């Protein structure tokens, strides 16, 4: 099959149930023609929206309509509504990293390291952008050599046929939006994922080591996991039927596990946990968390790759789960420590956003309440009790919020698709089977990212060293690494 079959990408994720149901339709030879005769987007959209057997009828109808205008040159059609929304969503997701996540993290570190965190997020944004066009996009979304049900090299990683965005241009489409828009949308996901890891080793990593690690991690961990989950028929986890609408495995478990591995390999900050290391400016943190909340509508609702009912549902359940998790963390802390905290409610909101991410295309309103409540409570326990008990120094709780929230979300996605007002399971799939599929995807993601991240970090530690010197750490990374101060008061 030529690489003409468009990466199903995130729209495909929406339609994953249908893929399981009507896998044959995706293999229809007519779909495989270059700029095929059928308007893919127009077919895929109803398919994804209506998970009922009338999809076949829908295809027939479209075929009939096509026949009626057969004399006109036909091809995948650009939908301006979808495109307008995806342009907006892409900007929203970039806004999550700079400035949202940057501020969220910057407020939680000590004043002497505030610039280092902002710098790391900003540099990752720039570095990933360049690497994404060089090879990242191709390795994540190129579909050369993929065939449904066949496990080969291309089930794990895309070819380099789209390196330097070969073949991506003004006229190429993904579903009903220009491929440059889809490519940039996915780029913003590839940016925020490594940026999330920054929180785990904040206040102690060498900047040069960070750049090397993030560049290699993007290509060797992010791109393959994104490929396995999202790139369509023939991709490993896609073929299992895993549900991951906007990145529970690809983004959050991936970043959370890489984070805990990095925290362990780098070791604790000097003085942890005996020295006080309170957040230096929680106002920044709350502003950042609020920006994340707003930007996340682009992340989740944008993952429909269309301005349709799926996007609308994704937006609603995102809001519901986030608010529920914020309250859950707040009340948990109130019960455990006697007072509700601002850092707590903001952290709870982020935990809810993380957990609803994989489920946002399939969960119903009640499911969103469940996911939010469980994630808010569990992430609170992980970030406070578990961290204290185990004694690891995951500085800003990347593991406690993103890995734990991601795992809870990924597993509950399997539960909430079939119950509590969810979209409904694929035909022939039981709730138990779907949950097992979700668990398998979680396990593969954890093992893959843990092993490769560990190897990368160990190699870099040997070659260039990961940590700043003790003196630099005491002085603060802002002065030690950047010759600047965040505040001149």
């Amino acid at each position: 099959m030529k690489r003409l079959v468009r990466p199903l990408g995130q729209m495909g994720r929406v339609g994953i149930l249908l893929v399981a149901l009507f896998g044959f339709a995706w293999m229809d030879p007519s779909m495989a023609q270059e700029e095929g005769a059928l308007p893919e987007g127009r077919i895929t959209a109803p398919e994804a929206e209506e998970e009922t057997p009338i999809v076949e009828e829908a295809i027939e109808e479209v075929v009939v309509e096509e026949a009626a205008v057969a004399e006109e040159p036909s091809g995948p059609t650009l939908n301006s509504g979808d495109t307008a929304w995806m342009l907006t969503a892409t900007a929203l997701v970039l806004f999550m990293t700079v400035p949202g996540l940057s501020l969220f993290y910057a407020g939680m570190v000590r004043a002497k390291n505030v610039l280092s965190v902002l710098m790391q997020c900003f540099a990752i944004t720039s570095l990933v952008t360049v690497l994404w066009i060089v090879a990242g996009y191709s390795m994540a979304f190129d579909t050369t050599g993929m065939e449904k049900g066949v496990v080969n090299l291309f089930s794990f990683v895309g070819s380099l046929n789209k390196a330097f965005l070969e073949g991506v241009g003004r006229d190429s489409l993904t579903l009903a939006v220009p491929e440059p828009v889809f490519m940039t949308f996915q780029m913003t996901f590839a940016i925020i994922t490594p940026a999330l890891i920054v929180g785990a080793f904040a206040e102690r990593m060498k900047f040069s080591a960070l750049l090397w690690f993030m560049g290699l991690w993007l290509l060797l961990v992010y791109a393959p996991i994104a490929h396995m989950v999202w790139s369509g028929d023939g991709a490993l986890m896609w073929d299992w039927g895993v549900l991951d609408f906007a990145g529970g495995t690809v983004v959050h478990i991936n970043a959370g596990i890489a984070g805990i591995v990095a925290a362990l390999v780098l070791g604790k900050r000097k003085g942890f946990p005996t020295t006080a290391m309170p957040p230096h400016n929680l106002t920044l943190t709350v502003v950042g968390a609020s920006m994340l909340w707003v930007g996340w509508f682009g992340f989740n609702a944008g993952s429909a790759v269309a301005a349709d009912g799926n996007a609308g549902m994704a937006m609603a359940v995102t809001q519901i789960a986030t608010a529920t998790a914020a309250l859950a963390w707040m009340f948990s802390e109130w019960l455990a420590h006697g007072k509700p905290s601002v850092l707590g409610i903001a952290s709870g909101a982020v935990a809810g956003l993380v957990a609803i991410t994989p489920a946002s295309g399939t969960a119903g309103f009640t499911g969103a309440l469940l996911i939010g409540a469980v994630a808010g409570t569990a992430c609170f326990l992980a970030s406070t009790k578990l961290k204290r008990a185990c004694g690891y120094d995951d500085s800003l709780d990347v593991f406690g919020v993103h890995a734990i929230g991601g795992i809870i979300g990924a597993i509950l996605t399997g539960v909430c698709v079939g119950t509590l007002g969810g979209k409904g399971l694929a035909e022939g799939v039981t709730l138990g089977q779907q949950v097992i599929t979700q668990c398998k995807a979680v396990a593969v993601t954890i093992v893959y990212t843990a092993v490769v991240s560990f190897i990368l970090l160990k190699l870099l530690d040997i070659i260039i060293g990961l940590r700043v010197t003790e003196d630099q750490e005491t002085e603060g990374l802002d002065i030690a690494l950047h010759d600047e101060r965040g505040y001149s008061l």
Partner: protein
Amino acid sequence: MKLVTAIIKPFKLDDAREALSEVGVQGITVTEVKGFGRQKGHTELYRGAEYVVDFLPKVKVEVAVTDEQVEPVVEAIIKATSTGKIGDGKIFVYDLAQVIRIRTGETGADAL
């Protein structure tokens, strides 16, 4: 002449300033300071990590006065800043060797 130095609760600064004006004080110097006394510190909690903050923010007010003014000034400060609770602060009175007004070169009580 004496130098009266009062360490008070920050939110009592305006009351103290008013009370001092009423007893004829023409100028004061205010500094934001930190410290601890019997009030000790307080605890802060961030994601389960509890920190004891030893040094509490206070305000230091310095007033240079003639010997006769010491008593009314001290009383004015106490009246304005006392809440009856632990942490109200302290007043220190020092002997003052000399005072010079920079602009005119006046010295002693004339410079106050």
